[in-house]
């Protein structure tokens, strides 16, 4: 076990995730799962003028996945779509306070960003 995975910040955000729930006024929405592991994340986003006005998520997942979603939604609120699109694994790890992660666990950590980006891409296509 990477003991880092169970540091305070991750456990806190796992137990008390920020922005957990639905967003009725969302105009961008996406849901995806990690094959074979049962993690599912849905992102609901309100985009106005190319900016993320509000964001909420629902889903089930391990501590890393849920903490990642919680921290990510905190970070992107108010950000430009282009800024979100430029986020990568490094950014997610630094949000989580981790320096590295195993490939299998990496998929858990990255799922929320993957879903968020997919929702924005779909939004832009429809616009």
């Amino acid at each position, binding site marked *: *076990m990477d003991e880092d*995975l*169970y540091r305070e910040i991750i*456990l806190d955000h796992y137990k008390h995730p920020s922005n957990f729930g639905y967003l009725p006024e969302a105009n961008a929405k996406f849901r995806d799962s990690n094959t074979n*592991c049962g*993690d*599912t994340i849905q992102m609901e986003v309100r985009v106005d003028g190319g900016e993320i006005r509000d964001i909420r998520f629902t889903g089930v997942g*391990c501590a890393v996945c*849920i903490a990642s979603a919680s921290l990510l939604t905190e970070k992107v609120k108010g950000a430009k779509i282009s800024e979100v699109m430029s986020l990568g694994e490094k950014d997610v790890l630094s949000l989580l306070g981790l320096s590295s992660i195993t490939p299998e666990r990496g998929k858990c950590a990255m799922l929320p960003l993957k879903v968020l980006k997919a929702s924005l891409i779909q939004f832009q296509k429809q616009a």
Partner: protein
Amino acid sequence: MLSDQLVVERIRRDFPIFSRLENGKPLIYLDSAATSQRPIQVINAVVEFYEKINSNVHRGLYTMSEEATEAYEAARANVSSFVGCKPEELVFTRNATEALNLVAFSWGRANIKQGDTILITQMEHHSNIIPWQILSAEKKAHLEYIRITDDGLLDPVSVEEGLGKGPKIVAITQASNVLGTINDVKAIAKKAHEAGAICLVDGAQSVPHMPINVKEIGCDFLAFSGHKMLGPMGIGGLYGEFDLLDSMPPFLTGGEMIKEVNLEGASWNDVPYKFEAGTPNVEGAIGLSAAVNYLKGIGMGWVRSHERELIARALPLMLDENGVKVYGPTNPEQRGGVISFNVEGVHAHDVAEIFDSEGITIRSGHHCAMPIMNKFGIPATARVSFYVYNYGDEINVLMNAIKKVKRVFSVG
């Protein structure tokens, strides 16, 4: 008679993997339902094939190739006797999944017609679900599921309802890889036949763990995997009743499985070769045969009772542990050596990860059995599974690891 502990110690000496550390701790391997470890006897059998008689089988007229062919056919005879069938009734496949697909493609496409019913259960592994979903979609047939009860047993009412629909085939696992449930496949096969259906048994989780005799069960097909029974990966088996196999069209086609070919068409080789297209995994078959010898040496009766004892010890501890939810039957007699559980408020991934920090390897996820997950309304479970090289003391480490999970997540 040796005590159980002594037998296990002797067995463990045959498994090189146990000299490895997991996270700096002695390896406690509790993931044999995913894949088992290999004893040195199996490894040596494979290496010896490579070094002494490696050559392609059948058609070789030189000494070495005849030796390889004899070894391959001796492996077939040995493995077939292990499950109680004739050598011609055993087709070597890559794994249980391919064996199940073979039946769905070959028997299924020749026999399932529009409106027919295929009966499976809600506790099947995906490998015994999706081939039937695809077949029934293609043929516009009905796929029906026998429901399971809250304690993970087949619902007897649902069994009768299902059979009442006059299925053409009943495809059912003998032991659940998630719930541990052991199904009475002998009774099911009998009822299936009475209802005019054939009966396929998924033996992936039973053949490695208990004495099996297909003629005694009375099933028409039995699928299993070598890698779950101390054998190599890449080899598995399908038992098929001779006349049934003989009447079926081939599945994969190519070298080895034909009698004659001209530009217009081909005629098929005899059973079982008809179903073994291309160069077979000879070394895999030989390794599997060595695994069978190893299991025969310990005795399948011992294997079953050893696992039952481990379960009888672990299950009450886990059932008693605060904040731990255990799935499946509570009676060890109804169970194979598998326990699925969740720690409340903690995702199964995190359980597995924390177990790993204690040197315990377990699986977490849906275990390729999503219908079970849906039935219990959960995304995943953590699963421990026992085999011949596990012993009672490991259960203490396991229980301590559960306590560590609760500590880290401040739950329970």
